[in-house]
């Protein structure tokens, strides 16, 4: 279910009144996408579950305090998710004393045993991209969000989103092709 942005405005108005049906609808509408986005980025189910829960807890806290999003709920949720991912990456870097390199690669050394193979390979490749390209490509090709939605999430113009997606995909293709060429036969 993908409500349009005008519908989101009504959802948020009702959510601010702590209407439980509305909050349930918001959760049912966005939880899976938020979870998947985080999971793609961190590659660890339990971490994704924790961070996704934090995203929605933060929504409740903001609604409670009257500081919640006025519109663009989906973009707001993804931005919170992105911030939590970055925070978690920093914590991970601190825990392992590893250098913080563009927030990437911080959990890739210990993926779940039952990680999906194709997704895992793509995640590794995506981690080589600059963060803005990684985010744009992930949202476009793995989450299948529209360029308008991605522009809202990343606070960019639609044109800039298209450029980042294109450059990211080109860089991905080059990196993967390079990797294939260097693999021993």
């Amino acid at each position, binding site marked *: 279910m993908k409500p349009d942005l005008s519908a989101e405005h009504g959802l948020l108005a009702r959510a601010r009144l702590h209407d439980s049906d509305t909050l*349930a609808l918001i959760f049912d509408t966005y939880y899976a996408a938020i979870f998947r986005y985080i999971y*793609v980025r961190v590659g660890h*189910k339990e971490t994704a579950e924790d961070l*996704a829960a934090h995203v929605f807890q933060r929504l*409740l806290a903001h609604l409670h305090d009257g500081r919640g999003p006025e519109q663009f709920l989906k973009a707001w949720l993804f931005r919170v998710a992105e911030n939590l991912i970055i925070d978690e990456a920093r914590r991970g870097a601190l825990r392992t004393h590893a250098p913080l390199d563009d927030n990437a690669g911080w959990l890739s050394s210990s993926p779940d045993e039952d990680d999906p193979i194709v*997704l895992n390979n793509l995640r590794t490749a995506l981690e080589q991209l600059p963060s803005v390209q990684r985010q744009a490509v992930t949202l476009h090709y793995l989450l299948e969000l529209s360029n308008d939605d991605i522009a809202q999430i990343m606070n960019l113009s639609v044109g800039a989103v298209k450029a980042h997606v294109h450059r990211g995909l080109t860089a991905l293709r080059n990196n993967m092709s390079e990797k294939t060429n260097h693999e021993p036969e």
Partner: protein
Amino acid sequence: MNPNDDLIEQFEAARAELEHFPDSQTQDRARAAFLASASVTRNGHMRHSHHNSALLHVPVMLQGEKKMPVHQSQRLRLAAAILIAVLLAGGIWTIPTLRSLAQEVISFFIRAEDNVRNDEIYVGGTPVESGEQPGGTLAAAIAAAPFDVHVPTVIPNGFRLDSAEFTHGVVLLKLTCQEPWAVWITQRVFNPAEVVPQDIGASAMIEAVDIHGAVGQYVHGTWDVVLPENFDALRQNPDRQSLAVESVWNNDLPWGKLTWTADDLMFEIVSAGGLMSEDGRNHRCAPSREQFSALANGLIANSALASS
């Protein structure tokens, strides 16, 4: 873009794999926790404008200024010990009846109007003896309690079960780490009419924690008591006296509290001590939310352990 591009095909395959996430169990669990939190938030919000501060005034664990100089920390640690003793002896277990709080979802916490509140602490004099010294054994507490005591089967690294006792209707298990860090686990018969929600700062977050299907309410942070300049002199006074202080809620302090009900019992896990120690407030003994959760999920009814 070439639609037959290998890379595009890989994305399609990855999307197909991604469709399996999150699994229904994860989503159901998250949904239940979210809606429970929403209910807690809603109830807290509703009572926010009506709450009677006198009824909701609860004992506070003493903390010092966040950036206090080291030379102040020892005296404050002593003060903390005194206060904790006073709280233990002077009615931490005394809970007034407040039937209006028995609602569909019990709120164990309630947000204050802002992050600053006025408190009253007691200083000086000799701590009142409770008459029942802590330090008993788990077996003795199990034998004394009129309910099925839940035994910790998971203990955070660095902690050990220090003592257990049953007093004033409450089983108190004390886990200690490096002195003075500790975690208390309390268990008592659950009576919704006797639950008084604990006052938390306006910026505090109430998080839902799954505990074998029950929804626990977890809050990280605590009230930071701002002590007066003459506190050192006041605590030397042979007569105990009350002291009006100001407390500031701080979400960053590594103290937490987890409360939930299960099996007709009410459980609380509270981190205690440590804030006054020289090694600061990010000590390894400060339990994380995950450790709170593991500890809670590791509490098993003694009867179940005995029969297994």
